């Protein structure tokens, strides 16, 4: 086990940021913590780094209890959303900063900086200053700076959130490749579910200071542990149906509600409905239907607004959640 937090609590005044979080990133794993703004995911990362002290619980890195230890002694590297590059230093000096302040011999600094910038593909930028770089290049510099130290774990705090859409996709692939090459433990925090699902070995979904589910991207998307996780992951969001609404499609036990992903609402079934609105998002179309259901279909087979369609939902595509607790109910 590489990085773990056990029953970690953190409060800021009256606000509970972390309500007893237990989570583990396994050795060499890319764990993505995802959740809406303010769910405590960045606070969790800062607690692991030691930038925030915890009110209760323990933080372990490679089996060592680091709960009360200062950040520098934890041997982790962090990448920030705002890149956190020193504007007065060149790219090379930024990358080598951690080595220089630790008084690493000059020759070794030079060698390790060269290796890191080569790995990230920014060798041609070493003499530039941060203000001469694009957002993507700046984040690459920040990644190289994290790499050069060869830490026990990498903590990435929304590293792609400041980038434009195209660069974000490119950097996502880059991160995945980098993780494969370096093979280190990485904890990546994001509010972007697509980023989480495409990047992660495992995903931890957080909500209101608590971890709601940990699992592979397939698990958290395909078998959400509760209503909150089900609603957070997926675009458009999952349809929720009461016992009555679901009756034409399948039987739902009392005290539960049904959840159906929009891509599982078929438009070639028997239950009549009218198309209220159609949103086209590139290759997909989001079809808003009378009764509040949303279906996701390929854009080239989308119905027109006002058209009457027949709906169908397969029993095996229905998720059941307890109405009171929100927990998943197995049929």
């Amino acid at each position, binding site marked *: 086990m590489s990085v773990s937090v056990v029953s970690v609590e953190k409060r800021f005044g009256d606000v509970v940021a972390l309500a007893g979080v237990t989570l583990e990133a396994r050795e060499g794993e890319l764990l993505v913590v995802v959740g809406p703004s303010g769910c405590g995911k960045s606070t969790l990362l800062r607690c692991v780094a030691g930038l925030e002290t915890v009110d209760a619980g323990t933080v372990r890195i490679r089996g060592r209890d680091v709960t009360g230890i200062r950040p*520098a*002694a934890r041997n982790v590297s962090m990448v920030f959303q705002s890149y956190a590059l*020193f*504007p*007065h230093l060149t790219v090379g000096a930024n990358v080598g900063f951690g080595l220089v302040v630790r008084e690493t011999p000059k020759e070794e600094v030079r060698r390790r900086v060269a290796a890191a910038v080569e790995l990230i593909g920014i060798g041609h930028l070493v003499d530039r200053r941060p203000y001469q770089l694009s957002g993507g290049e700046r984040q690459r510099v920040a990644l190289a700076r994290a790499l050069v130290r060869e830490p026990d774990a990498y903590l990435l705090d929304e590293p792609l959130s400041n980038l434009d859409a195209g660069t974000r996709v490119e950097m996502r692939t880059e991160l995945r490749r980098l993780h494969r090459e370096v093979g280190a433990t990485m904890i990546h925090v994001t509010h972007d579910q697509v980023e989480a699902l495409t990047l992660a070995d495992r995903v931890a979904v957080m909500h209101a200071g608590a971890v709601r589910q940990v699992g592979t991207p397939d698990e958290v998307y395909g078998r959400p542990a509760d209503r909150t996780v089900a609603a957070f992951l997926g675009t458009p969001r999952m349809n929720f149906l009461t016992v009555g609404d679901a009756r034409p499609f399948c039987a739902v036990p009392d005290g539960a509600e049904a959840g159906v992903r929009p891509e599982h609402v078929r438009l070639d079934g028997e239950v009549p409905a009218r198309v209220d609105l159609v949103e086209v998002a590139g290759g997909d179309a989001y079809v808003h239907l009378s009764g509040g259901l949303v279906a996701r279909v390929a854009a080239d087979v989308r119905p027109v607004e006002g058209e009457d369609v027949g709906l169908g939902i397969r029993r095996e595509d229905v998720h059941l959640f307890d109405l009171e607790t929100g927990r998943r109910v197995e049929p």
Partner: protein
Amino acid sequence: MSERRQLALMLAPYLVGLTALVLVPALVTFGLALTEYDLVRSPVFVGLDNFRELVRDDVFRRAVSNSLVFAAIAVPLRLGAALGLALLLHRRIPGVGGYRSATVLPTVVPDIAYGLLWLWLLNPLYGPINTLLGWGGAANFTWIGYPLPQWLTHSNDARAAIVILSLFTIGEGFVVLLVTRQGLPAELYDLAALEDVTAWSLFRRITLPLMAPVLLLLLARDTIFSLQATLVPALVVTEGGPPLYSTTYVPLFVYRNAFEYLRYGYASAATLLMLILTAAIVLVQLALLRRYRLGNG
């Protein structure tokens, strides 16, 4: 209305004030510098006579050298104090608001009141400063055996007094540096914490370089200020002496020539020379600033 026009309109009140209160008087000063004028009779054109006399005037030369020495000592001390206090008081700690107010307060006290206060503080017979320094020592000596400073009667002590009283009016620089420090990205300091940076290294490698552009601007600004701000303390506290001229700075020289000796033309010429000297010093500093200027990244 075009945006250009709107901007021009908004700028107009300031431009009117600048013209009426600064540019016109400056031009008049330039004209008067070429005359002999006693504020009673009409000015008489004398060409560059005033400047020739100034160059040979021992008192003026002492005033210039006093002003430069004062600026050379007071400016770094003032900036250092403002920077130190800004770094000390930028954090949110209990009572920090009170400390910040206390730092700014002396700056908002009117010059004359501030000067009179120091006249009392520095009084050799009953002033609290010498009372404190003399604690436990023999009469007129400090407890470690040094004679007590004679702030108002000894030339070097008097010069030191003017520097010391200038060290408490650093409110403006303090506020600017406080805001600058608070504006530095917190992530840079988070990163430093992860990289095992010592406090001194943090200051030298991160805080100081990031604040350098503002510090250099303040350096230029404080130099201008220091070359002008000696008038009231020198007039009220040390009266330009003691003995003769040891705290006569250029502003006091100008004041006395203009309003006590009624040599308005001569005072105007001295003002112009000081303006040129100040501009030269500031230009050198700005050239330095340009070398240190960072990108907007």
